[in-house]
């Protein structure tokens, strides 16, 4: 009986997710498309929970749906055009044939891919790398296997991923300055922010601390911290709570920098690159994670601000901190 209930839940969840994806990609209005996308992201987090991936669910909700959604909503505002009534497009045979051909091609692709996936599932023993991970997990000083993989076994990948984030932030800043326009905050926003922001900060610290032994970790904590920054920005703090000048620059690089420093020090100390001494592993991971959390949070806020903050080169913040 339970199994049927779960299966029904699964089918509903999948149907809802696919419908939202369809709606998002085919609706005519861009803003609606983004909102459907945010809802899609939230349903995706539910799926992650269903598949026993709470760490990923946290990150998806915060970054995938939340921050990406905020970013895209602001982007839609950039592209607002006056609504023109499009002249009815004449039916073009060439277009129709091309479209149908592409559709068939992609359907065939999906079928082949699906078949390959189903066959592939059978090829290997179900546990794949699970056993090796759990076998070596005690040596990492943490009990959350995802944290172990991210910050110890495959730490090199995480370092490079932080470099990707840094590259995106640098690119965003190289292109132009931050957005100037926002609505003046009202009383409700100010009141809300006064308790919302501290709550987010505390939650973020909790996630960071808990990440060693429970779902959580640097990325999730950073996402919450970045959310606090976005709230600050939306309630009138132009710089989103970011520090100024050289401190901001140091903050942005300290994520990658933390990884690089620790790994190189290990190398100089005679160990292999990224080989943490066992008794220190837990503390080292926490250290790297802390640096990474604030660094990632700052980078996420810069990415959301979509441009170069006024204070990047150490100048003065151009508008009042709290626009009245």
């Amino acid at each position, binding site marked *: 009986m339970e199994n049927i209930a779960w299966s029904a839940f699964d089918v509903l969840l999948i149907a809802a997710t696919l419908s939202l994806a369809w709606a998002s990609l085919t609706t005519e209005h861009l803003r609606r498309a983004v909102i459907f996308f945010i809802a899609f992201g939230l349903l995706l987090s539910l799926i992650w929970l269903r598949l026993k991936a709470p760490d990923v669910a946290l990150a998806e909700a915060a970054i995938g749906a939340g921050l990406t959604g905020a970013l895209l909503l602001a982007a839609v505002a950039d592209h607002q055009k006056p609504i023109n009534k499009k002249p009815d497009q004449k039916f073009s045979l060439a277009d129709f044939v091309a479209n149908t051909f592409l559709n068939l091609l992609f359907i065939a692709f999906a079928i082949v891919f699906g078949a*390959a996936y189903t*066959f592939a599932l059978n090829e*290997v023993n179900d546990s794949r790398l699970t056993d090796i991970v759990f076998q070596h997990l005690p040596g990492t000083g943490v009990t959350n296997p995802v944290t172990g993989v991210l910050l110890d076994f495959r730490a090199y990948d995480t370092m490079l991923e932080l470099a990707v984030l*840094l590259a995106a932030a*640098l*690119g965003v800043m190289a292109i132009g300055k931050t957005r100037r326009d926002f609505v003046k905050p009202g009383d409700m926003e100010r009141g809300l922010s006064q308790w919302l922001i501290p709550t987010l900060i505390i939650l973020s610290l909790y996630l960071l601390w808990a990440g060693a032994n429970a779902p959580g970790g640097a990325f999730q904590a950073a996402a919450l911290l970045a959310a606090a920054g976005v709230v600050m920005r939306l309630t009138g703090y132009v710089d989103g709570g970011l520090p100024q000048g050289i401190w901001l*620059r140091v903050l942005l690089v300290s994520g*990658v920098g933390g990884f690089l420093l620790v790994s190189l020090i290990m190398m100089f100390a005679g160990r292999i*690159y990224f080989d943490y001494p066992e008794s220190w592993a837990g503390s080292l991971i926490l250290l790297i994670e802390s640096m990474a959390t604030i660094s990632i949070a700052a980078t996420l806020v810069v990415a959301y601000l979509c441009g170069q903050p006024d204070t990047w080169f150490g100048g003065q913040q151009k508008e009042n901190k709290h626009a009245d």
Partner: protein
Amino acid sequence: MNSIIWLVAIPLLGALLCTVFPRLANRIGWMFAAGNMLAALLVMHTVSQEGAFHYVIGGWSQGLGIALFADSLTALMVVMSAIIALAVSIYSTAYFTDTKKQAFYWPLWLLLLTALNALFVSADLFNLYVTLELLGLAAAALTAMGGSKEALSAAIRYLLIGLIGSLTFLAGVVLVYTAYGTLDIAVLTQQFQNNKVSWAIATLMTLGLMIKAALLPMHFWLPPAHANAPAPVSAVLSALVVKAAIYLMLRLWPDIFYPLANIGISYVLGGLGAAAIMWGSYQALRAQRIKLLAAYSTVAQVGYLFLGLSLIIVLPDGELRHAVMVGVVLLALTHAFAKAALFLAAGVIMQRGGHDRISDLDGTAQTLPVTTFTLALACVALIGLPPSGAFLGKWQLLTVLLHEGLWFWIIVVLSGSLLSAAYAFRLLGHAFGKKNIPHKRLAIGLEELPALVLSLIATLVLAFASAPVAKFIQPLSGVSQ
């Protein structure tokens, strides 16, 4: 052992420092490029002394940690990138004069270099995906620094198509993990079988890499991006970034996907390569600007490399395959140096003259003699005239094609070379055109030197170095050793 790590750590550290100290970025930038060169030479030295080596980060067992790998091909790619990177860096110190631009150019450029190095030494499939993404993002951001509307729109297109390519590659990686339970290339090579799932994997990864390498028909993003980016960025894009995807094809097909080798793929890849050669060369002939000509020439060159690749896939391990391998490597190396030289020279011309229209180039030989000489050398290398490395590369390719009786491909290669000669001489004809200019003293700007050195390497050094290079390229023993 550690030299591999320095390849990734040095540019990365440089990027971080340039971000924090934007006013010193110029100096930090080229110093770290020089440091990168030392690391690359160290890797080459280690490989030539001890042979290929394999290294798991963190000392974990294979499959748990991420593995790095370096063999002779890796060493060549890394040294080639390092030399070009140093030349481009020195040129960049003169090119970007605005501190605000320098503050972002140097970190992004060094991050691109990090991604390149990390890609060349990686032996883990997901790690490869991450490096590909870093490469694509940094490259797109740098392209946008060209500032013009064309640069911005080219950058967006580059970014989006690059994302599609990476995602397709990732789809292949996901299937690999599903079917083989590992992300490690060495482990995968041992376990790879010829079945339907493996075909799906190979197809997905190849499609992704084809997009990244701009092989016809997925090439349309390349000309606008390379033509509108700032000159040093274009040099890097054409010379190095495109090579990364081709390097990956060389890594994947002869080693991992070997059980899948069959004549059909050879025809598909070879056919697309041939089409790329003809189409790219034809468009280069029609191009009105130097940078556009150079960009289309890259499209054609990618075609040559895929043609060679299609041969490598089907030939059994032996002398013939090794000959093609040497040919492909020589072509890739020569093209990298020559194209970088061409773009840097175009940059100099643009800065002095304000434009790079080919038909208005008259008088360049008189005002910029060194740069014109560089152009000539670069063109020699691009056409494939002796003694350039490209000549030897094409010679190797043609020899094997002759041996196998593949007349159609021979005609394609020869026609392609003829077309290259046509557009090269068109370019040079205008550059050497006489104009009434008061005679000035011969002056060499610092910014002309890097291009000159690169073109000399392409035409002369590689010619003399080709024999040692050929011996150095071990028959592809594969990552599994």
